[in-house]
């Protein structure tokens, strides 16, 4: 990957789910430079999840290209795509941990699928469990964990193959304020520690404000506006951004120094 190539490069993708259906995504482009945290905001039905599914190549866009760490995923044949997938980790909204596998077996899964040697898997899983403070839960099943612990297992699993890109679908929805702050903090630390580029899908403008370097606001499958978090939250240009900010008007208690400083910086939203 060349130095200035974005880690995630979405080029004018369009997607519709049926020939006569309206466009779910309409010529959406966004580029996330290496090591940045980018937030995709929007109301339900704006196309956020469709965008994430296209980037993850769970859906194939009808036009446009998606480049991940320099390689064009839209045109990759299946066997090569399977190998390339190690470059991307995904944390789904419902986490999708395997209930039949213990914590350590869940984290080792992407490495097993990539046929890494056992010794490598063991070392990597131990390292990740320690980093995410879940070592003592290694032999537990997901059903025996708290919501925050499950989230950490999902993050550890997503990072198992040492990906250059991490996608997170609504990582903070359905979490209590304290757990939410801790998840946001963890995502921020993951970027600093692992240098991974992160794309977060969320409808919660506070979560985005707390950790994103840049934001893209989607409305009805189109980009309403895109730019630095600071700039957009200071002077929102699009109507939908103002609405999103109004919906989330109540001050949130995201209680970390990092986030507080960011909130002070952008003023009370």
């Amino acid at each position, binding site marked *: 990957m060349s130095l200035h190539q974005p880690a995630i490069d979405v080029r004018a993708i369009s997607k519709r789910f049926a020939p006569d259906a309206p466009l779910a995504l309409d010529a959406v482009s966004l580029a996330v430079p290496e090591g940045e945290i980018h937030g995709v905001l929007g109301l339900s039905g704006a196309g956020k999840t469709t965008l994430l599914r296209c980037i993850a190549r*769970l859906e194939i866009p009808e036009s446009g290209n998606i480049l991940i760490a320099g390689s064009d995923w839209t045109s990759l044949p299946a066997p090569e795509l399977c190998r390339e*997938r*190690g470059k991307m980790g995904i944390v789904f909204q*419902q986490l*999708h941990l395997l209930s*039949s596998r213990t914590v350590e077996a869940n984290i080792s899964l*992407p490495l097993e699928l990539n046929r890494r040697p056992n010794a490598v898997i063991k070392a990597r899983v131990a390292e990740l469990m320690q980093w995410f403070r879940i070592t003592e839960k290694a032999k537990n*099943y997901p*059903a025996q964990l708290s919501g925050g612990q499950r989230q950490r297992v999902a993050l550890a699993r997503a990072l198992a193959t040492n990906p250059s890109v991490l996608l997170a679908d609504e990582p903070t929805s359905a979490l209590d304020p304290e757990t939410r702050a801790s998840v946001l903090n963890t995502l921020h630390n993951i970027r600093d520690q692992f240098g991974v580029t992160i794309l977060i899908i969320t409808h919660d403008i506070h979560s985005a404000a707390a950790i994103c370097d840049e934001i893209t606001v989607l409305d009805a499958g189109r980009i309403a506006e895109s730019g630095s978090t600071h700039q957009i939250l200071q002077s929102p240009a699009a109507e939908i951004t103002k609405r999103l900010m109004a919906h989330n008007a109540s001050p949130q208690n995201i209680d970390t120094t990092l986030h507080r400083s960011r909130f002070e910086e952008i003023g009370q939203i």
Partner: protein
Amino acid sequence: MNSLSELGPAFLEATLQTLAMVSIAVLCCAIFGLLLGSWLAVTSPQGIAPSRGVHQVLAAVVNVSRSIPFLILIVLLLPFTRLLVGTSIGTAAAIVPLVIGGTPYAARLVEAALLDVDPGLIQAMITMGASPVQSVWKAYLPEAIPGLIRAFTVLAITMINFSAMAGAVGGGGLGDLAIRYGYQRFRLDVLILCCIVLIAQVQLIQFAGNFLARKLDRR
């Protein structure tokens, strides 16, 4: 006329024959059913590698063999059975139609148990780079274990039922005993005792199945 107690050894033999027939048939049906059922689930429209053509051919084969009444299937399979085991009478011969009749049934049960696994989980597997075979092996099957055990419990009970029918055409086992003594010689006591032993077997299998499924459910 023999008293019930004189028929003791015959009862024991018949019970063991039924158990042997059913266990071998269930084992074979489970193996073939897992293969065929996984294939059905993977190629189904909601599966990981949807293939309309393959799925329809498989579904047609399963449906055709499932729509033939078991008693007729035994008769239709007589030449094949004779070819395979050298005889069309006895316990070994009864296993052939049991496996052929039970496999499509097992396949449908397996397919249903696999499609019960959260599709989101399978999509997560795909994004981790899993091939269809890896998805089946590492996600579908392990996640469906409680469902599969319940499916095989139903299968085992159906096999007991089928094995009694196989008894009617000389297949041995409790069904054979019930027909020869209970029906042809008007021995109501033998008939009832056969039923009691069959009921006990079914209860035991159901109990064991429920227990195992509960024990292995990690959700």
